């Protein structure tokens, strides 16, 4: 209970903090290296963060509702492999995409069933489904990735929208981002997500069908993962069993850096959106000034630690200052409610 309260105080300002950090990065970036703020480079950045942004949206919902999903990377690869496998076996590419989306929804349904109806711990069980989905990719494609996808589709993956620097995938990503922001902050679904993360029991007593709601959230995650898989497959014009390696940890790091509390119940969509863009922008700047890619890995680790430690330190300092003002509150917070 205490950690949720501290997360509240710490996180209110956090998403604005990331927004400012993004602004600073953009400004400093364009100052120190002329290549950063060019339309083509920004286009590359948008393409780089495309899939991570799509997966980060449902991941934010899951973590705010108090759950997590480590299988999104392997699920993306499974959907991509399914599309490749179907296409290689004579199914039209458009239909293959539909099959892929169904497979994506199925991966979400499996996770949703295991977590909500079997009541298993989501962290542990999605480590299991991660291995399962990755294994299925190899069962499908073995050692032969699928290439030579139809030009119309791969064209979409590579070219930009005419007269702009934005890739075609932007047409899919922008509405998803806007829809996710509306859904979380302005609809019943979003309100349910927050309160379920704070206390699933109180949510159940408020007439919220918690089990079914979280199950559908996992299915929606599966569908979003399949959209990301389509963008991924078209961008790399191929489907291979070892794709999207490590995407799950990158996505979770981005969501947490966006100010979403791992304990559930707190976070903002803007924080997550800014965070995904910021991580893409900072990588681009650092690469353009020939910052070694090893250091890049260190930077993302440091940013992640900073995103959780900083609000906590602020909160501890504040409570210590408050403590000096009035009688120190009893150190052992009373467990039971007042009777």
């Amino acid at each position, binding site marked *: 209970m205490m950690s949720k309260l501290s997360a509240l105080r710490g996180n209110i300002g956090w998403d604005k903090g990331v927004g400012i950090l993004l602004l600073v990065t953009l400004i400093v970036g364009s100052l120190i290296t002329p290549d950063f703020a060019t339309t083509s480079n920004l286009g590359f950045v948008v393409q780089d963060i495309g899939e991570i942004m799509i997966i980060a949206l449902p991941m934010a919902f899951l973590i705010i509702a108090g759950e997590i999903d480590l299988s999104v990377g392997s699920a993306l690869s499974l959907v991509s492999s399914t599309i490749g496998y179907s296409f290689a076996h004579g199914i039209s590419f458009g239909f293959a995409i539909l099959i892929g989306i169904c497979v994506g929804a199925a991966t979400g349904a499996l996770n949703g069933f295991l977590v909500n109806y079997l009541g298993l711990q989501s962290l542990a069980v999605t480590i299991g489904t991660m291995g399962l989905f990755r294994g299925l990719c190899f069962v499908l494609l073995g050692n032969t990735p699928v290439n030579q996808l139809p030009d119309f589709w791969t064209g979409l993956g590579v070219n930009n929208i005419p007269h702009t620097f934005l890739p075609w995938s932007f047409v899919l990503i922008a509405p998803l981002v806007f829809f996710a922001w509306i859904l979380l902050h302005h609809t019943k679904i979003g309100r349910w997500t927050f309160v379920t993360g704070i206390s699933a029991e*109180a949510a159940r007593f408020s007439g919220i069908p918690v089990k079914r709601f979280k199950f559908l959230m996992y299915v929606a995650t599966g569908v979003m993962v399949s959209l990301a898989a389509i963008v991924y497959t078209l961008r790399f014009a191929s489907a291979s069993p070892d794709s999207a390696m490590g995407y799950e940890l990158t996505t979770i790091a981005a969501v947490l850096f966006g100010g979403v509390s791992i304990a559930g119940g707190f976070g903002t969509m803007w924080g997550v959106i800014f965070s995904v863009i910021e991580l893409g922008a900072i990588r681009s700047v650092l690469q353009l000034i020939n910052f070694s890619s090893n250091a890049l890995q260190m930077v993302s680790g440091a940013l992640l630690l900073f995103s959780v430690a900083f609000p906590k330190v602020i909160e501890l300092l504040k409570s210590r200052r408050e403590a000096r003002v009035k009688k120190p509150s*009893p150190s052992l917070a009373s467990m039971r409610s*007042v*009777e």
Partner: protein
Amino acid sequence: MQTILEIHGAAKRFGGVHALVDAHLSLNAGEIHALLGENGAGKSTLLKTLAGVHKLDAGTITLFGKDFISAGTRGSLEQGIAVIYQEPNLFPDLTLAENVFIGRQLVHGKTVDWKEMVARSSALFTRLGVPLNPLRLARGLSIADQQIVEIAKALSLDAKVIVMDEPTAALSANETERLFNVARSLRAEGAALVFVSHRLDEVMALCDRVTIMRDGSTVATAPISEVDTDKIVKWMVGRELSDLFPKAPAVIGETILKVENIGRTGQFADISFEVRAGEIVGIAGLVGSGRSEVIRAIFGVDNYETGSITFLGKKMQKNAPSKAMRDGIALVPEDRRQQGLFMPVSIARNSTITLLKSLSRFGLIRKAKENASAAEWAKKLQLKFNSLEDSVDRLSGGNQQKVVLAKWLSTNPKLLIIDEPTRGIDVGTKSEVHRFLSQEAAKGLGILMISSELPEVLGMSDRILVMREGRLVAHFDAKDANPENVIAAASGANA
């Protein structure tokens, strides 16, 4: 008799609620002392202070002549006081031996002395007449056996003061008898026991002296030989009933809820009753008599195996709270903090969580309408707050309960089920809540109310049902119910 424990002028305040005003209690060696009082009389707060969970704002506690320092259960244990809650808080994954010696495992040299711990704990268990296996895990232990482990923990530190909070609530007859024998043998060895219970028959059978608390203060202390149940009830209730509860007579409409012998193994069996529009039906009964379990089944939070429930003529679907809510049933749950509210969330959002569909247009929540609805109900319930955006955990207990009421009454239900409407609420807000409930009933709302506060049940209800050990044992109309026959029915004393 040598006095072990002396509590004088104990006072404690939580926000607006004065849990303890002027409580005092004295305990002699070799005595079983009953501590009685209605819910909210301050018993639990006093116990928690002895358990090291709270610190008093004022007053003194002297133990064996020295001042008592409240510092966690370990601190209390080491000073010789052991408090056993109704649901003991053991370590489910550790063995019983470890639970007894938690935090201070016996060692020889550096290593834990398992043989010694197992031997000592099984000796303690046999001494208490309950040969539990010290090597089994605490997970899955019955409540009665968990209590034995807690008592064994007390004995392992030869604590001289053992406080038991409603120990017999969840015990079977022979488990209760077993516990009493243990208590008597401890008394014989010179320990002082405090026995908190509502079961007057048990108190009369077991205890030597009795102390009665009301509204945070001690009102009477007497040897058991000089009192009888009626006198005790008078002390407990004290207040005249009528002036507190302005229950206006309401026009009783047609039946809205019909419960036909529903049952759930281990919790309640063939419960049947009806609630009509404009009527307040009160359910009295002791803690653990199954009342909360019945209403959780009606609202659909829990399942039930036998029987059926019809609401407004339609058969209700089992296990579907969201459906019940849509049909027009509202449930104000027993535990405000864990079940009723989302503590870190604002007043506005808490009170509109049940209205989101009606407040939205094309799926978007209209903020203005949301704030308007919250403000409207806050005014209706005379909620004391400074901004709708404040989180509810800053409010007093009474105002928190008003937010829960706002949350549910704003769905204008046909039936309001409310569990312990005014538990832990200051007296002022209490009467406001009562007046509000009777106004809503007068407008045709059917209310099914559970309360452990006798005056509240008697003062508010048109009809009173009494439950004991999972069964409906008595049924009174308001006019012919009185504290004596209700308590008699509830506690199974010579009915």
